């Protein structure tokens, strides 16, 4: 769908993207890819719009790969990740001595991307003062390095991306209208994951394969309950959040079974935005420990066919007393799933009940 370069080479996220794959076949994705196909073979500037984690960089990469520039550099810059003072130098380069600390000449991203594609992520974060220079290079393909009067001519195709409302920023005078119109030649909107839920199972399988291979784990089974939870979650962080949760689940997996890494009872996607924000804030505080504990308990219960007590029970596996395990299960809202898949999907959508409201029904060992 990264930065974090080490001295020796690109970071994992970069390598993942270098060998990228587009997963899914939902109508929303097919419509998007049709637009990608249409615009890729042109020289036009593309503005990729979408929430965080929807894969804006992957789509930019796809446009580059399909374009006639595919064998030329694909250079990227996240404008939000660079301090404002350094952004101009990153984009256009500088000469030695151009400013305090400029101890050597630096080639900017526009020069590096010559004859190729430059992907400017979070373009809405480019400061107003720098926008005229960006506009000029887009219109004339010309610029000067900082500290130099020499004009450089480049041949760069620009793909810009943002999750911000550029039109609103223009209305508030936070973004130049002429630059906005120059960038907005061919806007491509990426659907959030909640609008392409059909693709979730394929994405889960895809990420399992990647992480299982990387961690040398053998994941043989994804329980229907886990997949139902993935499919019904609202995914505010979109595909990146899904990827991270699958990675967590692969780490927590035991006996080849992928546990459900989502919070106890995930928020149904029909909640109001305000409620979702509140739940997200609460979850961000509680998620790590609770999640890990829940995943471990579910793992043990799965391995013991939901037997709690006795020598073959989950309590012994977890090193807990039977009553302690029952207490923890109540607290975390863990109930034995009904065998019926409809019940499982409905249960997964229920909001988390307070421990006092939970009954112990279904918690007892069948033994």
């Amino acid at each position: 769908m990264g930065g974090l370069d080490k001295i020796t080479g690109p970071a994992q996220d970069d390598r993942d993207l270098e060998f990228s794959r587009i997963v899914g076949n939902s109508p929303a994705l097919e419509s998007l890819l049709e637009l990608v196909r249409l615009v890729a073979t042109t020289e036009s500037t593309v503005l990729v719009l979408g929430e965080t984690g929807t894969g804006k960089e992957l789509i930019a990469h796809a446009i580059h790969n399909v374009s006639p520039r595919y064998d030329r550099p694909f250079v990227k810059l996240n404008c939000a990740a660079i301090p404002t003072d350094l952004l101009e130098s990153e984009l256009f380069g500088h000469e030695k001595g151009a400013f305090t600390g400029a101890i050597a000449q630096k080639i900017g991203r526009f020069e590096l991307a010559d004859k190729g594609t430059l992907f400017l992520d979070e373009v809405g974060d480019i400061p107003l003062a720098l926008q005229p220079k960006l506009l000029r290079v887009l219109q004339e393909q010309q610029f000067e390095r900082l500290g130099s009067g020499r004009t450089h001519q480049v041949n760069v195709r620009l793909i810009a991306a943002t999750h911000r409302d550029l039109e609103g920023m223009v209305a508030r005078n936070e973004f130049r209208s002429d630059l906005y119109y120059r960038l907005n030649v061919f806007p491509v909107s990426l659907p959030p994951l909640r609008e392409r839920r059909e693709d979730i199972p394929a994405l889960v399988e895809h990420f399992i394969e990647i992480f299982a291979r990387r961690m040398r784990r053998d994941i043989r089974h994804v329980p229907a309950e886990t997949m139902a939870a993935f499919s019904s979650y609202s995914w505010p962080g979109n595909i990146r959040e899904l990827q991270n949760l699958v990675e967590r689940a692969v780490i927590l997996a035991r006996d080849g079974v992928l546990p459900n890494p989502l919070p106890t009872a995930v928020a149904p996607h029909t909640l109001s935005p305000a409620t979702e924000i509140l739940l997200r804030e609460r979850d961000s505080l509680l998620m790590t420990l609770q999640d890990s504990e829940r995943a471990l308990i579910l793992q043990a219960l799965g391995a013991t066919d939901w037997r709690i007590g006795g020598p073959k029970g989950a309590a012994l596996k977890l090193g807990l007393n039977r009553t302690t395990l029952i207490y923890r299960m109540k607290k975390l809202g863990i109930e034995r799933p009904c065998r019926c898949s409809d019940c499982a999907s409905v249960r997964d959508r229920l909001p988390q009940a307070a421990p006092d409201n939970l009954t112990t029904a279904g918690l007892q060992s069948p033994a």
Partner: protein
Amino acid sequence: METVQQENLVVVVDDEEPVREAVSRLLRAAGLTVRAFASAEDFLISGLLNTTGCVIADIRMPGMSGLDLLAELDARHCPTPTILITAHGDESLRMQAMRAGVVKFLAKPVDGETLLASVQAALQT
């Protein structure tokens, strides 16, 4: 008996022997372990799928194409990073390839430096 370092093997699949040999030579000179095959079918029956860290294949080959190979690797749950050698005019094939597997594209004639950098990235993926 031949032994290959786990998942660090680089496989070259190209029906054109001169290309196959040149690419293999370049990779071996960089210290990589390489096996070359004249067809995707030969590679698939080689028993080396699980020890392969990177595949370099021509997208256009008689019999199974590079695209077919990518789909087969996916079907066998071997998400091996694959470098497809393509030509201008293969736009729709490149789009199909991006949906079929974990892939990167290089143009013919292959630039040695770019190829090596891509293979190194693949082996770390």
